[in-house]
């Protein structure tokens, strides 16, 4: 900071190689620590000097140079752009072609940090020809190198479908899929995240990932002891399930839904979120799939999530998933209602929290419109706000004219009294429903 960088600069061109190396290491550590130091390093024009003699240097220097580049690139997109403009990418590619695994690891880490920021930088990394070399790195025996290469591929493919397609064309999917059964937890995290970033963009990519025969091996990842492995495994399944009903069908047939349900039951917190969304996506495609989710005992963990979790977005996701399950036919709505989850949903709705309302209104509406299970609807009658009341009364008015036992129950539980107390404008839908209900009973009782 206080002129340190200017002092270090001439040492980079020193004759003795170990001095050059140590200078580079010092610069790297400085840049790693602080953004401003990194900017100073870039402004002082050190990068061209660092990179110019790279091909002839020994492997320790290459490692430290790659470390410096990585330390600078990780702070912000502008610094990464500066690195790319210096022409550092070609040098890093030369480092990737080296034999020493440490050098390769440092180079791929630098590529990963550069590609992380935005699609243009990723495109620059791909244009430098790094992707085939990274795929080769994945096949190396060292675990650390595999980890870093997998995380770099994940960072490259997350931005856009074209980049993901480039990664796929280099033949990455087969190698990544082979590494899923590997016992190392951190490696599994990166591999699963890479595969999910590839699969999320389009149906074709998701189908390619599925063709690499990841099912049912991926399900063992959902039982791993590491939380993030479970989370990334669930994310991968979610990205595959969300595209088409056929893919969801595949997941159901291979027993994926049961594994996801168990996974949700065993985790706490944000780790559950992808699993919940998976169930929602699978159930959303068709009623058969939604029935399959119900049969795999999917509803109880979702209810538990709804009640236990404190985070808003997880609750919203659980409510959305329940809505997707319950909205297809009366059978589905009955299963959801039997699980005693409607009062909880109503409470959340009434509780006036900002983004949740939007989602639960649609959820509640969808479930209620199909629900004919009257014992579950009754407690809602007493507490609901008018917008929901409309739907509840509507359901009652559909069922009561036909079912005499239900009518008797309705009167004895005080539902009829409650209905009378509701004020509604004449001519509105609510009034019509109330009239229909009143018409089912003889006059004296209505009085």
């Amino acid at each position, binding site marked *: 900071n206080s002129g340190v960088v200017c002092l270090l600069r001439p040492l980079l061109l020193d004759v003795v190689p170990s001095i050059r190396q140590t200078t580079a290491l010092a610069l790297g550590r400085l840049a790693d620590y602080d953004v401003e130091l990194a900017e100073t390093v870039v402004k002082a024009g050190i990068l061209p000097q660092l990179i110019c003699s790279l091909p002839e240097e020994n492997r320790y220097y290459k490692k430290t140079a790659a470390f410096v580049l990585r330390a600078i690139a990780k702070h912000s997109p502008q610094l990464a752009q500066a690195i790319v403009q210096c022409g550092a990418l070609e040098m890093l590619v030369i480092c990737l072609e080296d034999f020493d695994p440490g050098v390769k690891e440092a180079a791929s880490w630098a590529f990963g940090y550069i590609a992380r920021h935005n699609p243009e930088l990723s495109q620059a990394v791909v244009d430098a020809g790094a992707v085939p070399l990274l795929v080769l790195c994945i096949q190396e025996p060292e675990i650390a190198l595999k980890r870093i290469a997998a995380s770099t591929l994940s960072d490259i493919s997350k931005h856009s479908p074209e980049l993901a397609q480039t990664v796929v064309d280099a033949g990455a999917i087969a190698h990544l899929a082979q590494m899923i059964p590997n016992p190392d937890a951190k490696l599994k995290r990166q591999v699963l995240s890479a595969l999910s970033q590839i699969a999320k963009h389009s149906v074709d990519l998701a189908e390619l990932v599925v063709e690499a025969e990841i099912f049912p091996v991926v*399900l063992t990842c*959902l*039982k*791993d002891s590491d939380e993030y492995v479970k989370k990334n495994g669930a994310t991968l399944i979610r990205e595959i399930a969300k595209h088409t009903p056929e893919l969801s069908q595949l997941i159901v047939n291979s027993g994926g839904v*049961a594994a996801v349900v*168990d996974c949700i039951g065993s985790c706490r917190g944000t780790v559950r979120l992808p699993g919940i969304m998976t169930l929602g996506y699978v159930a959303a495609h068709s009623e*058969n799939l939604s029935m399959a989710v119900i*049969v*795999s005992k999917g509803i109880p963990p979702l209810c538990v999530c709804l009640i236990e979790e404190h985070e808003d977005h997880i609750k919203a996701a659980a409510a959305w998933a329940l809505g997707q399950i319950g909205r297809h036919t009366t059978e589905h709505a009955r299963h959801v209602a039997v699980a005693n989850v409607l009062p909880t949903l109503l409470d959340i709705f009434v509780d006036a929290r900002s983004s949740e309302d939007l989602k639960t209104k649609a959820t509640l509406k969808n479930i209620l419109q199909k629900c004919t299970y009257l014992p579950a609807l009754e407690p809602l009658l007493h507490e609901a706000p008018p917008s929901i009341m409309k739907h509840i009364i509507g359901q009652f008015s559909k069922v009561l004219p036909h079912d005499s036992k239900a009518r008797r129950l309705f009167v004895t539980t005080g539902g009829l009294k409650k209905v009378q107390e509701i004020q509604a404008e004449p001519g509105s839908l609510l009034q019509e429903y109330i009239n229909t209900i009143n018409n089912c009973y003889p006059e004296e009782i209505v009085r």
Partner: protein
Amino acid sequence: RAIDEDRKTKYKAAVKIQRWFRACRVRAYLRHLSKMAILIQKWWRGYLRRKHFRKVVERAYFIKKQKFYNEMAVRIQKTWRGYYFRKYIHNFYALKKYLNAVSMNNELVRHELQEYAEMKENEEKMKDLEKKEKEKKYQARKMHYLLSTAQIPGIYNSPFRKSPDPMELLLQKSKPLTHRKQQVKSPFVDELYDWPTCKEPPAFVTSLPLLPADRQKPQGPFRDPAEVLQQRYKPLEPTLRVRESMYSPPAKDRESTRRKEWRNPIHDNEFLPFSSYHKNYEKYEPSLFKSGKYGQEAYGTKYFREVYPKKWIADKDFETLFSSIALFEKFGKTYSSTGQIV
């Protein structure tokens, strides 16, 4: 005047009568006319209505038939749609079976995953246990001096205990720990670490394995046991050719020359010096020229040239003046069974 009045009254009466009669006639005529008009209108209207009625009847019949056909068509479509939907689109029993299959599959998957998780846990536990055991054994080896002697009971062997502590037993079993020898770094280490496939430097024999100190020397003409052990457990010192990796440049060049050699030769079968080599490879198949009706012809095996003494210019047969190949001179003149001359 009375006749005048009479005449007038008669005239008036006659006029009255004529008038009345004419009126009657006219009335009858009008009545007739109206009756005729009514008749015509009646017939005309009847005709029109009948014509119309026929049309109406036809239309009604057509509509009736149409309704009937529609009814029947609806019936057919109803049964067909019910059948089709129940069989293909929303097959209840297939759905039920499918859901049952899904739940069974889920059970299986859950069971397997449970087993997998348990196996992993067991592995972890085993690893932990083994680590602890190793720790304990190492500690025991380090503290071997705490073993109880015949006179003095050791720490773990208190006289008030019924049986000695398990630590005591460990101590009895363990060997005393010697100091770790300084590892001599081989001078080739740095170069070798540069090779991508080489993980450890080749281990040259630096020290002999130790024999137990109290071993009694066996009697008899046995070799020095140290020598024997060295010979038996000598580590492999591969030649440079073997040690060099497959991917280094000299190996690749060798590969290319080998391939050239394989490509270039004219004959596929290499030259084998003795006929016994050929016996294993080539089985002699007699050609059709040489096999005759009653077995093999002797020509080609027993003798090689037809002999016509009458055609000879001189009396003698061909004579070899000198031998060009020494090996061929031995043909038939050695005591081996190959090469028997006729």
